[in-house]
């Protein structure tokens, strides 16, 4: 497994974890209507930081001395994944613009802090799309080599 693939796997894991925490925060804020207080509200940040630190250490460690950092194919895969991510960001932003209009009406209003919440959601989903796009392309490549 090369570095790009390892990054994508750890990215997928970390972002899935972050998305779970994000959904949990959304449920607490919008359904249970409670705002977490005290030091306990920072535990998700701690979990994500520990996961990121572990990922960086493991991604930087080479499995063998012959492991290549990245070649032309990796660069192309990364570029295509960025394109997929970019397209998904626009689709998500369009949805994030339309959904509040449907919920509160065209002349309604939303709290300002919701913008940050929406954009963090968009960021997490876009990163998930990036990691998934990288892994799917590697899977397709292996399938082609197997033929």
């Amino acid at each position, binding site marked *: 497994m090369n570095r790009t693939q390892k990054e994508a796997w750890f990215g997928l894991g970390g972002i899935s974890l972050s998305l779970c925490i994000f959904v949990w925060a959304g449920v607490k804020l919008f359904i249970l209507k409670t705002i977490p207080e005290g030091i306990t509200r920072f535990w998700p940040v701690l979990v994500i930081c520990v996961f990121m630190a572990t990922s960086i250490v493991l991604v930087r460690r080479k499995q063998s001395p012959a492991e290549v950092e990245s070649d032309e194919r990796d660069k192309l895969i990364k570029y295509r994944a960025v394109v997929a991510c*970019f397209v998904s960001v626009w689709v998500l*932003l369009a949805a*994030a613009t339309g959904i509040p209009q449907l919920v*509160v009406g*065209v*002349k*309604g209003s939303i709290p*300002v*802090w919701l*913008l940050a919440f929406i954009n963090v959601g968009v960021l997490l989903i876009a990163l998930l799309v990036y990691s998934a796009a990288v892994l799917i392309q590697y899977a397709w490549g292996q399938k082609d080599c197997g033929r």
Partner: protein
Amino acid sequence: MNRVKKAAWLGLTISTLLLAVLAVMSTYVGRQLRVLQLFGVLAVLGLTGLSFIILRRKQSQTEVDSDERDKLIIRKAFVATYFSLWCLLVVVCLIPQFVIGQEHQMPVGLLPLMLLGIMFICNVVYCFAVLVQYGWGGKGGEETD
């Protein structure tokens, strides 16, 4: 001038113009929401249609569509646009918090305007990145046109 360069000049001009119109029209938020949304749709359709017509027409029979260098330039410009998109999203989150405060409310009608603004700025960044790269290439005597 090749197709990529033409597209960049066209995009830069139209996006800058649309940004200016958007900035003027955003002062009418809350009064002319439907008109603003219609403007957004028409602007994007018009931009796409006009670009398509102008770019399909070749200036000469020998004009090349795009070569490897053009592809590399487009790729680099795209990556620059991608990063600027994230920077813009952060700025869009922060500005209202500083201007009207975190606990206050903002009209939903402002969201499509923000999205359009981001879209036009991204297009300006992309076109600018393309033109800057062609400019650098020109200094080395490698200009494609």
